[in-house]
């Protein structure tokens, strides 16, 4: 992103190469997000979250900040396009995305050989689901019965996290070695 160094001077802002990159990936994530929303879910609250494949790929190739941009834009634009902006769905989506990004940030700091997209995908997916359940419990539902849904929802999150992770891993393999890790 281009920012003026001093707030008082007018500065023309042009999108740089990095901005275009983020916009491109966000567009891809939004498209997947929309396609996925069109498919009925077998269980309320469960969907594959394949848009997160994009977040994972971006995180491993361009770093956490780029992934945060892509994820944030996806949640925002996705909700605008689906008509859920500022609705509970949007709020849950934002909570999930924020938690997933935090988990991703922690996962990227694992020392040594670190985590590949598979481990990161699982971490982010579980964080995403956990945050959504907690938000649903304390913001919208107001009683503890929600927690009865924890086992199946987390099982789904684990499975889909693994799947997104494996897909992201394969995509990274095709795109070539990431800029960050050998």
């Amino acid at each position, binding site marked *: 992103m281009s920012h003026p160094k001093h707030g008082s001077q007018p500065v023309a802002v042009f999108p740089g190469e990095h901005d275009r990159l983020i916009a491109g990936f966000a567009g891809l994530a939004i498209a997947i997000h929309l396609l996925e929303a069109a498919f009925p879910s077998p269980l309320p609250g469960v969907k594959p979250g394949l848009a997160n494949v994009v977040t994972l790929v971006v995180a491993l190739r361009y770093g956490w900040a780029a992934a945060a941009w892509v994820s944030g834009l996806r949640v925002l634009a996705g909700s605008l396009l689906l008509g859920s902006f500022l609705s509970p769905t949007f709020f849950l989506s934002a909570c999930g995305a924020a938690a997933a990004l935090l988990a991703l940030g922690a*996962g990227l700091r*694992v020392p*040594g*050989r*670190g*985590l*590949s997209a*598979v*481990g990161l995908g*699982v*971490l982010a997916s*579980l964080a995403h689901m956990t945050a959504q359940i907690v938000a649903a419990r304390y913001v919208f539902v107001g*009683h*503890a*019965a929600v*927690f*009865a849904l*924890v*086992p199946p929802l*987390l*099982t789904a999150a*684990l499975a889909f*996290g*693994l799947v997104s992770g*494996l897909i992201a*891993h394969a995509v*990274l*393999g095709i795109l070539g070695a990431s800029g960050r890790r050998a």
Partner: protein
Amino acid sequence: MKGMTPADAVVIIAAAVVVAACYGVFWTGGGAGEYALVHSDDAVARFALDGERVVAVAGRLGPSVIEIAPGRVRFAASPCRGKICLHAGWQSTAGAAAACLPNRITLEVVGAERVYDSINF
């Protein structure tokens, strides 16, 4: 798989353990019920599940007949159309519940330890 790291294995195994533990934590059914709470529109009645007894509870449509037996409780009759409450059958574990929505009556089994504050469907 190529490119995966030891840390990946740790994360995946730990995640599987946590998820499996969730079933134990969140899905262990309630223990034996001690008493039943019957909520109607304007009243709550408490019945100990220690003997056989049949009570009629006034609802919006009329009286719902609730049968109490040692350790369990059920709707035996209700003036509603769907009879979903009757089909719910005997409720015996703490936290279990049945409801007759048209007649605005719910029954709930309560044990020594409350499993849920409330349940909705």
